[in-house]
């Protein structure tokens, strides 16, 4: 047991202590979130706040790491699968698990040192960023999508985006904008089958895991600015998004520094 983390000791003399101290929030325990849970547990992250209201279905088994045929047959909550994966590696792990949308019970998210979201909608991402910014929590988003424009083969792509309080936000770097949010709202309830595959989910989650580790250990001594990476799954290439370079040295205009803490309302 004492040498469990020897192979990652290059992360730094205090790295394992930081990893064991950090409280990680994971919102969404589907294709991306299930990989995150597994990898963070292997690394020794020992405090979690987990959200997912869904149960395991047969259609999840193509990508939900840790889930079994029996879980699908019994419609076991995804939270239970995540807890099982975590406790199998870390019996003493501290898990605050909530089978609800995070918006219905947001207080636990505020206790996190970093949040990773594997959410489906832009609106959910926007709302989660507002919460993370208000309570000074770094937020990493991962997402994957497939587009089909006949007669070309399907194009699968994804993103990993880090929103750090005090730095350019999702809107500043062009990841979120009002037009896309409005377009999504018009399609409400018509989301389609949301194509997802295990290898692409795994790659995005692995990069996000690496960001979490770097954030709390500073092992690379080079993570000093927001991250916006795009993944072209057809070619297997991950690159920084070109928009990032235009925003990285600008102050965020969407989340002023004094706009933190509990929201307050001033009567007119």
């Amino acid at each position: 047991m004492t040498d469990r983390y020897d192979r990652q000791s290059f992360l730094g003399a205090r790295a394992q202590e930081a990893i064991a101290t950090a409280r990680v929030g994971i919102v969404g325990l589907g294709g991306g979130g299930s990989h995150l849970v597994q990898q963070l547990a292997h690394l020794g992250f020992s405090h979690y706040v987990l959200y997912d209201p869904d149960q395991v279905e047969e259609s999840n088994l193509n990508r939900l790491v840790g889930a079994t045929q029996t879980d699908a047959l019994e419609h076991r909550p995804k939270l239970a699968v995540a807890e099982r994966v975590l406790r199998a590696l870390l019996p003493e792990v501290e898990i605050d698990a909530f089978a609800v949308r995070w918006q219905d019970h947001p207080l636990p998210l505020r206790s996190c040192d970093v949040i990773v979201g594997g959410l489906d909608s832009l609106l959910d991402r926007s709302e989660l960023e507002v919460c993370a910014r208000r309570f000074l929590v770094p937020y990493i988003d991962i997402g994957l999508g497939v587009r089909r424009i006949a007669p070309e083969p399907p194009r699968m792509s994804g993103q990993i985006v880090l929103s750090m309080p005090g730095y350019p936000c999702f809107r500043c770097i062009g990841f979120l904008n009002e037009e896309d949010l409005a377009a999504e709202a018009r399609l409400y309830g018509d989301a389609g089958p949301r194509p997802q595959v295990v290898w692409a989910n795994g790659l995005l989650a692995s990069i996000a895991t690496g960001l979490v580790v770097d954030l709390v250990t500073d092992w690379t001594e080079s993570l000093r600015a927001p991250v916006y990476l795009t993944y072209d799954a057809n070619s297997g290439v991950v690159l920084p998004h070109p928009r990032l370079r235009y925003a990285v040295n600008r102050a965020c205009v969407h989340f002023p520094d004094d706009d933190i803490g509990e929201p307050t309302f001033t009567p007119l």
Partner: protein
Amino acid sequence: MNVAIRLRRAFFSTLVDDLARPHAFAFERVGWVFARQATTHRGPLLLPDWYEPVNDEDYVRDDKVGARFGTAAIRAALQRARATNRSCLQVHLHDHYGDTQFSWTDCKTIDELATSFRALVALPHGGLVLSRDSATARIWLPDHDSPSSARVTIVGFPTRFGAEHP
């Protein structure tokens, strides 16, 4: 009860830069950090967002301690805490890198200040001690008869966790 204190790295750097300035006769500088309050499911969360250094003229000569200041500085801090409904933390710098901790004198001073501040502004108050790259806090919650366990997180690139205290 666990208290979390979370501050931006840029704000932390502002504190360190100001507190590291030499004073004409005091061995160290002191200031006040004012924090908004929030709640998590595990306890209070303090979000410092304002800093006021103790004015040069408010320091009092005393070779027995690193810094001593007069009642005008305390009155000004109390007034701001009350006017803005914010927690007030006395802050100073231990000029080294790595985890830091409160001295016996730090604890005594902070305990006296925090308990008197609580009597007038019923919020968490206390003290913050910084190193060049970390911080720790001593926090008194309203109606508690001892300091609560607190941990400071410096949020940014990188995110740094201070030692839990006490």
